[in-house]
């Protein structure tokens, strides 16, 4: 490019150069007085050097190139001029042109939008170098060379191998491995899971390390967390056409539950009620005699005790013990010990005579421990069938499903089912300690709602 530009500038400097625009012709631009500026900085150079003439010239060169495909000064005379010999030829050509346009009709006429988009420059667009350049050509060449070398020795890349395998499978009619089927696909296939497959022959250590063998499930996990059955059958009173008495039994049970609930509610209400002070006879009387009787003043007596406890910690004022005192103390200690030992001996001897009562007490104690053990065991047994406290919430026993006597259906057709089995199953899972009781998370708004009037709807004032 630089070379071309130089070339152009050289051409322009020559006396025969013809500028394309007439305005450029001659020294039309008045010579202004040069402004004196320091040009010791790049910025000032850029700002104050006058390059307009050069720019104009270059623009003209570009225009010439675009319009004619080269500089006019370099063109041959034949390409620029022709000898005018007559009008007829032109007419002919015009006629033929008109005919052809008529013949072609509307359809052949290009759209104006296309015409606008048509490049009007005579210079061909520069080639996109990147489009023809191969990135990493050297690297790829090396890779291909290596692959060819390996292929010669018979080693194929993985992709190639897989392709060949697939081709072979297709040729032999075996279906290619499909996508794994989703768990809940209604058409999924089942097989005999529990038949004894071929025993593993590989090294167990290898299998373990490669995670092909799963970790053994501990036995403890196969125990059920509750002894309750999976399906608890409803009481006989829950039949759609129940026996009178069993139905009454069920109703009574439900009634008792309801009564208990109500009692608890009432108790709560009672406890929460505002304790209003109602004036009794006594209180009104007291009020009336207020101030008439001299009340004995009770003096606070708390202040007296404070003065005594001023010393904190032991005082170091005690004098050192003398040798004599020490010896005396030691003798006293030994004597005490001896006395104790003696008493113990005597006690032991005495126990010989108490053998019977001791025996009785031991027996009693044993009995008691046995009883307690039994009790504890029984309690543990009952605990096994109870829902445990597994989380923040306690298990709430669901309401009994009951139909009142007047709700009972006269026939199977008119039966209205009571309760939901889905809920029943869910509660059963909770009751059996399989899942912890939870409540639905409450929706909490993060940001406050903001109200604004829309233009379309305005409050009527």
């Amino acid at each position, binding site marked *: 490019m630089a070379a071309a530009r130089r070339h152009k500038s050289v051409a322009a400097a020559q006396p025969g150069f013809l500028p394309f625009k007439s305005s450029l012709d001659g020294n039309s631009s008045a010579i202004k007085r040069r402004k004196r500026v320091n040009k010791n900085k790049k910025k000032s150079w850029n700002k104050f050097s006058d390059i307009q003439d050069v720019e104009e010239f270059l623009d003209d060169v570009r225009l010439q190139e675009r319009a004619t495909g080269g500089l006019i000064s370099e063109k041959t005379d034949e390409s620029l001029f022709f000898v005018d010999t007559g009008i007829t030829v032109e007419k002919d050509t015009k006629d033929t042109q008109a005919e052809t346009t008529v013949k072609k009709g509307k359809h052949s006429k290009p759209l104006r939008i296309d015409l606008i988009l048509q490049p009007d420059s005579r210079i061909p667009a520069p080639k996109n170098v990147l489009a023809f350049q191969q990135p990493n050509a050297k690297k790829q060449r090396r890779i291909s060379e290596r692959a060819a070398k390996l292929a010669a020795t018979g080693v194929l890349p993985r992709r190639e191998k897989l392709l060949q395998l697939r081709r072979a499978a297709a040729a032999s009619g075996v279906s290619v491995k499909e996508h794994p089927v989703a768990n809940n696909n209604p058409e999924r296939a089942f097989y005999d899971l529990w038949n004894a497959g071929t025993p593993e022959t590989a090294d167990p250590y290898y299998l373990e390390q490669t995670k092909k063998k799963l970790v053994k499930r*501990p036995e403890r996990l196969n125990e059920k967390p509750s002894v309750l*059955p999976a399906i608890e*059958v409803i009481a006989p009173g829950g039949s759609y056409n129940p026996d009178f008495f069993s139905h009454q039994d069920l109703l009574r049970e439900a009634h008792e539950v309801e009564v208990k609930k109500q009692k608890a509610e009432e108790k709560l209400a009672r406890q929460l009620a505002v304790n209003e002070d109602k004036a009794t006879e006594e209180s009104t009387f007291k009020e009336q005699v207020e101030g008439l009787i001299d009340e004995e003043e009770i003096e606070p007596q708390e202040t007296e005790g404070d003065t005594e406890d001023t010393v904190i910690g032991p005082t170091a004022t005690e004098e050192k013990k003398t040798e004599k005192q020490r010896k005396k103390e030691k003798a006293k200690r030994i004597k005490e010990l001896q006395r104790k030992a003696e008493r113990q001996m005597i006690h032991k001897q005495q126990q010989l005579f108490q053998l019977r009562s001791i025996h009785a007490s031991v027996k009693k104690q044993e009995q008691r421990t046995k009883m307690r053990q039994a009790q504890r065991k029984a309690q543990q047994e009952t605990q096994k069938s109870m829902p445990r*406290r*597994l989380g923040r919430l306690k298990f709430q026993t669901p309401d009994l*499903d009951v139909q009142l006597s007047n709700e009972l259906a006269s026939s199977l057709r008119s039966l209205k*089912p009571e309760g939901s089995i889905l809920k029943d199953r869910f509660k059963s899972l909770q009751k059996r300690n399989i899942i912890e009781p939870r409540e639905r998370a409450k929706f909490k708004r993060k940001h406050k709602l903001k109200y604004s009037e829309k233009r379309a709807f305005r409050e009527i004032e």
Partner: protein
Amino acid sequence: MGGLQKKKYESGAVTNYVSRNKARKKLSLSLADFRRLCILKGIYPHEPKHKKKVNKGSTAPRTFYLLKDIRFLLHEPIVGKFREYKIFVRKLRKAYGKAEWSGVERMKENKPVYKLDHIIKERYPTFIDAVRDVDDALSMCFLFSTFARTGKCHVQTIQLCRRLGVEWMNYIIASRSLRKVFLSIKGIYYQAEVLGQTITWILPYQFAHDHPTDVDYRVMATFTELYTTLLGFVNFRLYQTVNLVYPPKLDGQGEFNLKSESEEDYALESESYSEKLSALSASLARTVPLAEDEEAELDHFPAEGEDLEKMESREKIELEQNKQKKLFEGLKFFLNREVPRESLAFVIRCFGGQVSWDKSLCIGSTYDETDETITHHIVDRPSIDKQYINRYYIQPQWVYDCVNGKILLPVEEYFLGVTLPPHLSPFVEESEGDYVPPEKLKLLALQRGEKPQAEYDEEEEEEDEDDEEEDDQSEDEDEAEDEANLAKMEGKRAQGKSLSVKVTPGKAKPENRMRAEQEEKAEEKRLAIMMMKKKEKYLYDKIMFGKKRHVREANKLAAKRKAHDDGNKADKKKKKKKKC
């Protein structure tokens, strides 16, 4: 003395437990995924004995897991799949946001899936373990199969549940292992005996759904995911045990019969087969053709540690069961359109009956209403216009009561428009001395082979029972009288009065051997009671008192019932008189 000071909550119970949040973090799963994993693997939360110690001094209620369980979970390959799925969802959401539809397609094609087969194998090491635990799975599958396809759960899950439920019902029909049915206000309870295991499940009534809001659907869906896999494998194995083809195929000739023109009205071509299977009216194809009446009587030998008596009772039970299995054999039922078709078809077919319904009601009907050989027509409306002479028109409860009673009950009480006898629960087993409703007594009498009686007969029976009790009492009284006599005589002797001794010609007492035997037994019992230690005697008295109280209560209830019935009767009579 020396050593480091022990810190609190660093040893003991704390080290065995881990809180839910800690466990979740250890597995680096979201809470939903963690919950799902626990359900699939059968890891349940645990309540520690000393909560405060485990909770590091805090008394805030918290969910705890055993640390060893969580360590075990760390090895689970599905955990990786969960993480993969999480990434998948994230990528998919991004692609959606960018509207890269081809990318979405590609991702959806490569959606990560996981299998639960190894978990089933791990949780149920033997087939029998799985069968024992199939109650829950069945109830859940049947429940989900009745859901509307409204987006509460995947449509595919519903379809799979339906398929498995139908497979199970077909197996029960083929193996004739249904034992009890109970129509409750909640749903229908079924009980079957499969490979020696008693299996109970509950089925909701059709179209009885309101979706409760306090149920976590995600948790239930996870359970269903596990249970469908379990039930699928169990079904496969069960089909093998009775030589049925799996996946179930209709029997060849049955299929031929079923081909009718109106088939397209019910289902698409692709679905019609499964619909026909779920109609339950045709039998299934077997891998080994069933040779009829080839069951030779096997010789029974008493197992070790089992005496002859036990074996006999077992044989008796077996015989009874075989009889029950063929309860409806040879009977031909027709279901009117207002009765619960699926339940009735299932029950009837389980006991060898033939069943059909109106062609416009459902696919798979085998014969028309006009068929002359139909023996029972099940109707649930007060009256019907066109009646055939040679068949009974009965209400659906008859079928269920027959199944529970193990005999064909008299149809009179179940005719159209008749007030039905109560539908008793077959799941209650009365122990001795309990109150037994008179309907059940009647049923028991029928089972014993006694003739069906009119109402007053039944009352008489009750009276008979009362008489028996009275007899017992009178015996006791007799004994007391004897003793009194003896005492009197002795008293007289002590007073020194001469007794009037006379020799009279002896009368040959007709020796009643039975009576003598009974007396002897009673005497023995009395002596045994006399010989009891004080402590044992006390206990014995207590037990006897309890029993007597029980009987008294039962008697009271029976009397009440009688009074109730009498009252009802009187009312009826009055009404009749008024009408007159």
